[in-house]
């Protein structure tokens, strides 16, 4: 099994200092749990955040130095020596942050993709079993054909950071052919302004129904009916 983790560099959203997004650290954890050789790939110049990501368990990172569409560069690089598994984060942090890159790559390579992966199992007759994390702690089992692309869930277990590994990582620049250029995004860019969320949509307006001093049996009946109506007791 050979896995490749896609690393985007990135910054910490609070401090602005170089840091890998949490989804990419989770992706490294998934790659390590799959066993076999694991390597990192980044389109662009070596960056400080890459070393920090490597501290979570990568021995080597290939930095593809080409000009143009990173999807095309990655697709060319991956199809030259196809790995079994490509792992990505849910979205980058510090660039366009749309989370589109793995999807565009999957479409271009014609590989299947699953997002929100929290755990992967061992391959059995060409299928890789994975566990998908859903809101409210729910889980879903799925199987996917190899080779494939998996986007890690941000909350998937992250391997611990080892400073020495971050220091020793071998980052080699790989010269690649230039790809087609992509149009810069439209619109005007400016500093972020936090806008308030809609309020009052979570809490019902005003007080609700009040049952003053019911006898216990009646109170229990009303409580149960109310919880049933909210759909909390079907499961």
């Amino acid at each position, binding site marked *: 099994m050979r896995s490749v983790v896609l690393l985007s560099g990135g910054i910490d959203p609070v401090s602005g200092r170089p840091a890998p997004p949490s989804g990419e650290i989770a992706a490294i954890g998934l790659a390590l749990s799959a066993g076999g050789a694991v390597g990192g790939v980044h389109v662009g110049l070596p960056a400080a955040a890459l070393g920090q990501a490597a501290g979570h368990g990568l021995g080597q990172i290939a930095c593809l130095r080409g000009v143009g569409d990173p999807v095309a560069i990655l697709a060319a690089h991956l199809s030259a020596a196809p790995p079994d598994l490509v792992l990505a984060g849910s979205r980058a942090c510090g660039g366009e942050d749309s989370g589109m890159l793995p999807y565009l790559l999957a479409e271009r390579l014609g590989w299947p993709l699953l997002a929100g992966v929290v755990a992967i199992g061992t391959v059995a007759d060409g299928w890789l079993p994975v566990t998908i994390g*859903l809101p409210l*702690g729910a889980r*879903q*089992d799925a199987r996917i054909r190899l080779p494939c692309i998996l986007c890690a869930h941000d909350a998937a277990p992250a391997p611990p950071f080892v400073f020495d590994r971050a220091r020793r990582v071998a980052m080699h620049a790989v010269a690649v052919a230039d790809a087609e250029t992509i149009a810069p995004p439209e619109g005007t860019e400016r500093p972020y302004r936090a806008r308030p969320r809609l309020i009052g949509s979570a*809490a*019902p307006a005003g007080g609700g129904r009040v049952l003053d001093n019911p006898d216990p049996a009646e109170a229990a009946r009303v409580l149960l009916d109310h*919880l049933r109506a909210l759909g909390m007791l079907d499961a």
Partner: protein
Amino acid sequence: MTGRPRRDPRAERARCLVPGGARPRLVRAGWDGMAIVPDAGPREPVMIRLETPAFWVAAVVEAPDGRLDRWGRQTLGSARVLAGTDGGVVALLVGRDVAEAVGEAGADRVVCLETAIGPDAMPGAMLAALAPFAPRHVVLAESPAGGDWARRLAARSGWPIQTGVEMLSARQAIRPVGGVRRERAAVPARLLTLPIDRVAPYGGTRREGRPCPAPDVPAMAARIQVGPVIAAQAAGMPLAEAPFVMAAGHGVRDFDSFHTLSRLLGATEGASRVVCDAGLMPRAAQVGASGTVLDARCYLAVGIAGAPQHLQGLGKVEHVVAVNTDLHAAIVARAGLSIIADAQAVMPALIALLRGEG
């Protein structure tokens, strides 16, 4: 005593009060029973029917359990914003049919897609369903499923996409970029995804929500097989993720009943700080400013006063239910249902009822 005549404000109020209506309404000139009473009697249901709008805007809405949630309503609301007065809104409903509610939420047409289609075939099925409408925009929720479909759709169709739009009008969409330190304002793209609580749901006149036939889903060589969703076990679930939390406050003394009840209801256990400080519940169970902020749908507060520090932990909770002996406790003002009774009596009664039923 001589002098000015005494006023009786209560009698005056009763004289001015217009009967009927949900809220008291006073007519200072005096209510003589002749004025027109608004809101009295059932109103004729009005509905907007749109035959051939200038263009279509589509909204993809998840309704796995046949219920249209807040996020789904907001997604439809933003499609209405983009449609303006000339456009029509078509709802692509993934899950069970809720046509009635979808019309209320602003949809002119509804197409139902099955959840069983699976993520790999979904963009093809969506494109087939959208083809007759040639929508100018397609709006999705930036939820795990909605965000996934949106990106698959964008990759398949090549349509430009703006993800996580935080402000939306017909002419402009603003989304954070650069690690939420910068933002970009641009003309709304063909595909948009919306986080929760950013755009208001539709509040206008009911729309038709006319059902349209679903497209045939082309068979694909299966590259992905998805199993059923497994709901988490309430007991072992992290408090921050749990959908249903039952919490004990200082008013709970009978903890055996509390634990039994939480197990029977399938609720995750929480507690107020007083209870955690007393060592009656683990610190990890503390709800509030210095504990866990919940993401639950329902919160059952037993013997909890509802101090501000505690209520901060209920940020996103939609339904609060309170059992408390004090009618004036702050939690009662936040609750959708309050039982003013002794928790030590209500809990055993509820246990008996649940045991008797099942």
